[in-house]
């Protein structure tokens, strides 16, 4: 890698961090363009919050570089970094009013009082809290406190907005509306944003790009659609998508393919059409593989799909706009997701399964890495 690229808002190079013997971040590289909304997604303990803290300067990485708009800020203290942070706990100043909270950063910058008043008002209006300035923090609801925290972070017009699980303390209904609100404000201001979450719905709906982390390693760095449609490995495929993807063991030997859990054996030519055509797989080496089929791509008596044998329905969950079916074929439990509210299907009935053509994801049995034609 040569000199810093001026056109990136933020660059992370080889970030490493350990707590004792626990390597929390392993050689993380990342580039973010101006105005992008990046979501760091992963299970708890994956290192996403640690990475955000390394970006904010609240934590110093053991190795690697943080480069903001072409400038190495790895050793720069937080108060000189020009970043707005929204904390999971909101971290509002409880001894100050709403207005004093939002004005705090401007005061630290010795902004003239008139300008402070105007900017605070503008900031509160942006998050729909006009008139709340004189209130005490303790008089505000959780959702309002969250918006004060956002206004406080945005009022300085920082080059980077960092949010650590900003929605996790809100109840489900509020979360959905605040989700939309934050995404709108972000696009309106065009502010480069990194948000940490463990919630895949937030990641899928809000992000321009998702960085999926597990055990301190970037698993995939891609647009939400690509994360869902072409997961880079078995972990990503299993983490994103609800209900979870079905994983089916596959053994390939000679010209034949066996799916032992389902008690199936078929010629390779009949198996390959089930895989995504964009993966360009025309042949397979002998060995172990894992086939990933999303619940919406497992069907009952599906026309031209791959016949996947008989199964018995164990349990039906009717969610309203869709219906979930848990079925056992051979010794394998599979989950099917059918559109609409289906009342005609009952437990204990036998069905014929099929896998929709061109929808299967194939992973190497040992490494879990996605199989593509290039390999």
């Amino acid at each position, binding site marked *: 890698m040569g000199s810093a690229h001026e056109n990136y808002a933020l660059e992370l190079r080889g970030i490493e961090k350990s707590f004792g013997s626990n390597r929390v971040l392993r050689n993380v590289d990342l580039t973010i363009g101006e105005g992008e909304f990046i979501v760091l997604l992963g299970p708890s303990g994956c290192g996403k919050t640690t990475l955000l803290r390394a970006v*904010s300067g*609240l934590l110093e990485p053991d190795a690697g570089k943080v480069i903001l708009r072409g400038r190495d800020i790895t050793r720069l*203290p*937080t*108060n*000189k*970094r020009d*970043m*707005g*942070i929204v*904390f*999971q*706990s909101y*971290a*509002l*100043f*409880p*001894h100050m009013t709403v207005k004093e909270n939002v004005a*705090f*950063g401007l005061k*630290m*910058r010795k902004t003239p009082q008139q300008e402070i008043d105007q900017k605070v008002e503008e900031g509160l209006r942006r998050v729909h809290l006009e008139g709340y300035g004189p209130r005490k923090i303790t008089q505000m609801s959780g959702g309002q406190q969250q918006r004060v*925290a956002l206004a*406080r*972070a945005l009022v*300085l017009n920082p080059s980077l907005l960092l949010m650590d699980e900003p929605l996790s303390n809100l109840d489900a209904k509020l979360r959905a509306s605040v989700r939309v609100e934050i995404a709108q404000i972000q696009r309106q201001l065009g502010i480069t944003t990194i948000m940490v979450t463990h919630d895949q719905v937030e990641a899928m709906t809000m992000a321009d790009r998702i960085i999926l982390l597990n055990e301190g390693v970037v698993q995939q760095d891609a647009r939400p659609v690509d994360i869902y449609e072409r997961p880079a490995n078995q972990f990503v495929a299993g983490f994103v998508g609800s209900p979870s993807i079905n994983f089916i063991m596959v053994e390939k030997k000679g010209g034949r393919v066996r799916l032992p859990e389902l008690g199936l054996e078929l010629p390779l030519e009949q198996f390959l059409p089930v895989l995504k055509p964009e993966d360009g797989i025309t042949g397979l080496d002998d060995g172990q593989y894992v086939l990933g089929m999303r619940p919406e791509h497992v069907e009952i008596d599906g026309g031209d799909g791959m016949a996947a044998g008989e199964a018995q329905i164990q349990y039906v969950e009717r969610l309203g706009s869709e219906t979930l079916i848990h079925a056992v074929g051979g010794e394998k439990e599979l989950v099917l997701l059918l559109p609409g509210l289906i009342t005609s299907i009952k437990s204990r009935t036998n069905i014929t399964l099929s896998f929709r053509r061109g929808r299967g994801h194939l992973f190497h049995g040992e490494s879990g890495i996605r199989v593509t034609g290039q390999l």
Partner: protein
Amino acid sequence: MSEKAGRRIFAVISFLVLLFTMAPILMLFLGAFSADNFFTFPLRNGLSLRWFKAFLSSREFAASLRVSITVSLSATVIGLCAGVPTAFAIKRFSFRGRDTINTMVMASMTLPRVIWAIALLQFYSTLHILGSYTGLILAHSLLVIPYVVRMVLSSLSFINADVENAALSLGATPVKTFFKITMPLIAPGVIVSGFFGFVVSFTDSVVAVFISGVRNITFPVRIYAEQRGQGLDLEAVAGSAIIILVIIVAEMVGEKLFKWSRFI
């Protein structure tokens, strides 16, 4: 045993505790208001204010009170200036020796006071500050510091470190963050620790006996000396009654204002 009887036993025990705590204090007040020349129970000649008058016009007691207040106030100020940053460092930073500091800072609270006093006597005599105000104030700040550290530690655990981090992210320097955010939030704990630190210093007689020498005699030491010299001296008893009253009133006001029992 029925539930009612059980509850009654607990009530009786707590009432007895109160009685055993208050009885000597009440007795002391009775003696302070006595019109007799020495204390008898019951009082022979009824009540009077003569011992209060005697106490308030006594030069020795006035001098020793002045010494005590000067020493305790100074020790409290030093204790706060040293204890608050120490507690902050223990709570917020990780550094080599942090646990040792945390343990050792409590030492003067847990070690027998008389052993402390002997150690200080030895140490201060080599520093040639024995018998001076400086020595007495330094020795007493050592009594104050552990109280300050402990109470400030507990106040700090009530605030989320991210509140301070938020201030940093908004451009406040660490020093500004400490004074604008941390200090206002832990202020009640600091005030309470200052009060208790003052009381600990003010009530100490053991360390003072060893360190103060003959010139700067503190109030508790003076009272102790009077009692030994002339039997139960009612002038000192009246003085003690005043001190008790001041402290109890201060505690009640403090509880009302800061609910300070939560820090102890």
